[in-house]
């Protein structure tokens, strides 16, 4: 590794550390701002003063704020994220338990979103200002503007209550719950591993509607970005070169222009995947989906401090991680930065 590259690496590492520290300060502040007395939450309403003091001493609630902060960071570094007051379990165990449901939902959604969004974006760019472009623009604008929890409910009213095409809330119908052993936590995979097709189809049936709605909202973003990337490329001179060579429009678009936006697309799909967490918070509430989004909401509603802080921290870390990942992808796949 040469020096220039090394110093760039050092600078980036510095930036990450600073951002992480900022993130910790932010979550710490949110935790301290919460109108919940952490000691009271542990000892309960009836505890006497002596017990209260003792617990306060033990968890450090009587220390000055900056010392509390260092204690918080120290605990995190040892992998101690605290215990959820609501469930009585270590927060990290809770999160590991709910995460697969969200991953399953988000992965399905991103497949829908990217699978439709990228071709539609390219089509819109190629047929710029034609009717197809306007229709696609309208569809993406609706996806961009709709309140996702509302779309979820309308979906339930139409496809579940009226047409009975899909399953209702939850990941499975009641009578299938607990039938397959939990190996990965991803129901589709677990049921396939157990060879239980009935459970598999029931899970698909429950996943279809929430994931499609979530996917539609990320499709809006992906289509928009794909279209603008593609328009940039179609105005490039090398596209004219390809046409001059006698290449057909479709080969020019796919082999030449598309090759130039692949890396950008991976980046925005990664970011869209992260943004699905936001939609998941709402969609999981609508569909009673026992995932990370619902976990955050429930903890916020009851003011479970440790859990809220850890969830917020986790979301921040996921986003920073995705940003780093997309930077890294640029470096790996673009010949100009190799």
């Amino acid at each position, binding site marked *: 590794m040469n020096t220039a590259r090394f110093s760039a690496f050092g600078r980036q590492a510095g*930036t990450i550390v*600073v*951002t992480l520290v*900022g*993130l910790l300060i*932010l*979550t710490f*502040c*949110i*935790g301290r*701002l*919460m*109108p919940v007395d952490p000691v009271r939450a542990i000892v309960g309403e009836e505890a006497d003063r002596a017990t209260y003091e003792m617990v306060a001493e033990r968890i450090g609630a009587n220390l000055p704020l900056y010392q509390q902060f260092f204690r918080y960071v120290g605990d995190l570094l040892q992998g101690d994220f605290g215990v959820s007051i609501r469930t009585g379990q270590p927060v990290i165990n809770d999160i590991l338990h709910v995460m697969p449901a969200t991953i399953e939902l988000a992965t399905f959604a991103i497949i829908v979103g990217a699978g439709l969004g990228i071709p539609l974006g390219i089509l819109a760019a190629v047929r710029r200002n034609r009717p197809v472009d306007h229709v696609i623009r309208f569809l993406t*604008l*609706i996806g*961009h*503007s*709709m*309140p*996702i*929890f*509302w*779309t979820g*409910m*309308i979906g*339930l*009213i139409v496809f*579940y*209550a009226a047409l009975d095409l899909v399953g209702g809330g939850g990941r499975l119908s009641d009578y299938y719950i607990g039938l397959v052993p939990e190996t990965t936590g991803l129901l589709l995979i677990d049921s396939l591993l157990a060879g239980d097709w009935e459970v598999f189809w029931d899970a698909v049936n429950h996943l279809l509607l929430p994931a499609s709605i979530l996917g539609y909202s990320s499709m809006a973003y992906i289509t928009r970005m794909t279209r*603008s990337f593609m328009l940039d490329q179609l105005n490039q001179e090398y596209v004219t070169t390809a046409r001059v060579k006698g290449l057909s429009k479709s080969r020019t678009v796919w082999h030449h222009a598309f090759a130039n936006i692949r890396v950008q697309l991976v980046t925005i799909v990664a970011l869209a995947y*992260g*943004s699905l*967490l*936001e939609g998941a*918070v*709402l969609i999981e*509430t*609508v569909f009673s989906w026992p995932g990370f989004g619902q976990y*955050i*909401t429930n*903890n*916020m*509603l009851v*003011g479970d401090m440790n859990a*809220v802080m850890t969830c*917020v921290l986790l*979301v*921040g870390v996921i*986003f*920073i991680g995705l*940003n780093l990942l997309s930077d890294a992808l640029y470096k790996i796949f673009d010949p100009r930065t190799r």
Partner: protein
Amino acid sequence: MTMNSIDIGTAAMTTPSRTTYTARSRLLRVVKDLLANPSSGFGFVVITILLVTALVAPWIAPYEPNMIDLGEALQPPSAGHLFGTDELGRDVLSRIIHGSRISLAIITIVSVIVGPLGLLVGTTAGYFGGWYDTVMMRITDIFLSFPSLILSLAFVAALGASLENAIIAIGLTAWPPIARLARAETLTFRNADYISASRMQGASRLRIIIKSIMPMCLPSVLVRVTLSMATVILTAAGLGFLGLGAQPPLPEWGAMIATGRRYMLDNWWLVAFPGGAILLVSLAFNLLGDGLRDALDPKQGH
């Protein structure tokens, strides 16, 4: 004497003073452009309707928004109740009309917080540079590393669930992108000749930022604020829906959907109409923002 010479200098050299000179005719032209395009015209009209509705809500709403009439509970849409009634017999249309006041309040307060704050942070960071810039941009980075709804959720959880806190939380999460934009714009103007000219004439840094840089950033900030209003509407509705924003019996659209949810499978109108209102307003801001971008800055038209 020096003041005088500065004024002459800037008047002769700067584009901003020329823009203010013809500000009114430009504004007229922008409105005309917006109305000429069907999609931004639609956005403009919807937002105007929202404004007017909010202003005259008590006079046009057919019923009192909180008038409980259990005998009329859960009536489907009819001539008497165009959008039906909810579980307490309240008229859904009247509640939506009154809810427009809440939406308007949210939009107004958030843009009043977010626009100036973002503009101030962005222009100063861009103009001063150095460690101040670094610190400010790190802070915006941290805020930007969250989806806005989740960060607002966390703030509301910390501050307590109420409409006021929801507005504050949204305001806190919505300024960083605007600051980023204002900074980027400032960087392109910072070394322009007319800035150097006013600097050489002894204009203070504050004066340069306020008089010369901010007006140049204004159009793109305006576009950005308009577009982010679409997100603000959605986030506010999401918070209301989760029970962390406006609390019942306030006729906030998101909160109305949350209460309607229990009855929705048999009473679709409880959910469909408030959600339709959210969609319409959010769509209108998106369309208007796109139109504004085209009208204010033809070169980056989509």
